[in-house]
């Protein structure tokens, strides 16, 4: 193996309420592809953000090319040759491919931007990587896979020595993944150090040389990929925490009534003719790849986005839902995948957030009955075991799991019977995750009906009574939990992709 290019030693980082990184070590050699693995919330992304200067570490040291470094922003890191290819791509859709690649360091001809030279240079880069993309194409016209290739080309053009891939395959098709791997092998030959973050065990075995595993913000160990099995890695990832087995049979009684029926729902490209039923006390899992249209379906159902056609029935009655207001009136609550943007008002207190959907119930004439409001909030803090010093705490000061509980409280105060959980455990650490699972199971057993959108296969298999699979805006399958396997779901989730 090659010489060491990067060493991260004893990296420590604490956020309010979360010890995100607890003395973590990581080492990368030239010419290796090094997988960084761990459950969601294990600290992989945080570690990479510390490396690239997005977060400042509390302690520890980063040694890069033999010198101790500390980057203050991604630009510094880029200058030094450490580039990150994000899961969510950072591209300006309205600019061309070439303009995107050279954004911030445009070639100039006097006072004017030299577009021709940028196009030429982009073409050279693509040739080098054996990619065929037109540098003059508008970025938003490309597929996600192609956009990612552009990100890689951009990274290379920065004279990168270390490239970090953050779940690059999450939104890619099989074919695109193969192309990606070809490029990665090429880069490895050129003696670059590559950090590869992914959840997909099979990919790890195919593409990486070594694996470093993290768990709950700690460093667990590093293995040579060829010398270990999938099970070894999984064991390191989950540790001694007994991993709950997938559900084996539906918990819903056979005669449970249908509480929600969605009939031929259409909303733009991402929701095409989606129909399904939800029964009382059921947890209905929605599985699929990123961009399969699950969130869009939920938002259209909830009235957050306009729908083009389709009928919604609640308890057998046809209802009109044209705004979230209508949906809430009919007892539907929506917990967004992006809590901070769509779920909570972070600068307000737990109390203010808890009664946001139900304020009219806490009015004494014209005025808000603050005592009653506080009482119900405290009741739910207790019931959901939300960790906070008081109901007056600003939500911004809570950890992800506790913020999620505030959103759940908001809908429970409203007494919603149908709850849509969109990625309920995203950005939540392992312990809190289990609590959210328990809570969802309890709610279902109390007769609430839950739609759970999740990109984590283990979560889908563990929680769902039935699974709806979507792909490119269409429902491609419905699997009872008794018959569900990862393979069966994956097969349907990639069904329509050419």
């Amino acid at each position: 193996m090659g010489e060491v290019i990067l060493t991260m030693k004893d990296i420590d980082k604490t956020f309010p309420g979360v010890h995100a990184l607890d003395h973590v070590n990581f080492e990368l050699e030239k010419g290796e592809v090094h997988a960084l693995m761990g459950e969601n919330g294990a600290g992989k992304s945080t570690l990479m953000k510390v490396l690239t200067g997005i977060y400042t570490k509390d302690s520890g040291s980063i040694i890069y090319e033999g010198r101790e470094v500390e980057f203050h922003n991604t630009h510094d890191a880029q200058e030094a040759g450490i580039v990150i290819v994000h899961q969510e791509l950072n591209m300006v859709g309205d600019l061309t491919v070439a303009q995107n690649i050279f954004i911030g360091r445009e070639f100039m001809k006097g006072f004017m931007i030299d577009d021709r030279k940028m196009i030429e240079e982009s073409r050279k880069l693509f040739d080098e990587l054996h990619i065929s993309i037109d540098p003059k194409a508008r970025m938003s016209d490309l597929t996600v896979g192609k956009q990612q290739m552009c990100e890689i080309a951009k990274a290379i053009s920065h004279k990168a020595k270390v490239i970090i891939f953050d779940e690059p395959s999450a939104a890619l098709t099989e074919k695109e993944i193969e192309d990606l791997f070809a490029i990665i092998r090429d880069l490895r030959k050129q003696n670059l150090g590559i950090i590869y973050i992914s959840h997909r065990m099979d990919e790890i075995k195919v593409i990486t040389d070594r694996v470093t595993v993290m768990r709950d913000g700690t460093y667990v160990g590093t293995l040579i990929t060829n010398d270990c099995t999938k099970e070894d890695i999984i064991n390191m990832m989950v540790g001694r925490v007994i991993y709950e087995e997938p559900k084996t049979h539906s918990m819903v009684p056979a005669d449970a009534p249908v509480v929600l029926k969605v009939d031929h729902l259409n909303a733009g490209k991402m929701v095409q003719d989606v129909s399904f039923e939800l029964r009382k006390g059921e947890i209905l899992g929605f599985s699929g790849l990123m961009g399969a249209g699950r969130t869009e379906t939920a938002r259209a159902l909830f009235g957050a986005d306009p729908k083009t056609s389709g009928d919604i029935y609640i308890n057998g009655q046809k209802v009109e839902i044209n705004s979230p207001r209508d949906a809430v009136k009919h007892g539907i609550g929506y917990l967004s995948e992006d809590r901070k943007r769509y779920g909570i008002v972070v600068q307000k207190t737990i109390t203010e957030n808890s009664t946001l959907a139900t304020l009219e119930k806490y009015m004494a004439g014209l005025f808000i009955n603050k005592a009653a409001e506080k009482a119900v909030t405290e009741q739910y803090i207790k019931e959901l075991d939300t960790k906070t010093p008081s109901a007056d705490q600003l939500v911004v000061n809570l950890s992800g799991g506790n913020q999620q509980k505030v959103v759940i409280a908001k809908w429970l105060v409203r007494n919603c019977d149908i709850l849509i959980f969109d990625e309920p455990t995203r950005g939540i650490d392992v312990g809190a995750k289990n609590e959210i699972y328990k809570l969802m199971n309890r709610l279902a057993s109390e007769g609430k009906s839950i739609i759970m959108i999740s990109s984590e296969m283990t979560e889908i298999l563990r929680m769902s009574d039935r699974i709806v699979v979507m792909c490119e805006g269409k429902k491609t399958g419905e699997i009872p939990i008794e018959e569900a396997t990862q393979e069966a779901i994956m097969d349907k989730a990639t069904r329509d992709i050419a």
Partner: protein
Amino acid sequence: MKTIKENALVKKLGFNRIILFAILLLMYVVFSLIIPGFAGMARIMSIFNYVYFLGFLALGVTFVIATGGIDFSIGPVMFCCALMSGYMLNTYGVPVVISILASIAIGFCFGCFNGSLVAFVGVPPFIVSMATMNIAKGLGSVFTKTQSVSWPQGNDPSGNGWFRNLVKVGDVPTGLIVFAVAVIILFIVMNHTKAGRYILCLGSNKEAVRLSGVDVRKWQMLAYVICGLMAGIAAIFFVGAYTTVQPGLGDTYNNEAIASCVMGGTSMAGGLASIGGTVIGVFVISLLQEGIMALRMTKEVQMIITGLIVIVFVYADVSARRRKN
């Protein structure tokens, strides 16, 4: 320092507001020391005159800023209200009571106009209020045929001068009572009603409030309506103190009202607002105006200072937020 900040009373009143109040007192002392004859009732009454109309403007715009919006039309709208209703009074001979109600109604209409464009049509507040500013100036000019309008004096033979009692009776600043009542009502609206709660929450995260099933457009519009109403009331206090309004003016008061808000701790980013803070801010600006006049400097100097105040306080707010994140 930290222990002072954590004192319950200090927390309740707000540390920054206490500091601002101290600055207000300090300014008064300094002006009194450097300007002979500044101390005394005459100046204070004059400051009060300024506080009333600016106060109503600033209280109104506090609601708009709380939603994360902005209103650059309040000054000209106030003038438009005073011009149109005053013209009705002088030219058509409508009773003064009707004129006053007309002024408030005109302000209300402007508020509805701004609010519906922002909340229901989705035009950015900046653009809407800039356009409305010109509409208000133009409308005031057209309605009065580009002539200034003088409201009746207190001893006017028509008996219409009684409205000045709203501002003062002899040497008693009755306006202070009206203003205090308005402050109390608006404080309650902001902090203890559904309207205030939703306005503050939507200013902080509109989408989250919408997805909670709240009709955010209605409440967002309401903020502009309150703002317009306050401009209509401010108009009465302006003419009650200064008698005459000229068409085509009023925009200097936008900045002064906005400066009062941001000084008092209302965040331009929305979601945070302090009625009490705005009131102290209004007193600071009014005192500043009086002091500058007494120093025989021009209004332009004050415009420079209020401009700088806005920048400094907005910068302080932005950097405080950045530090928190």
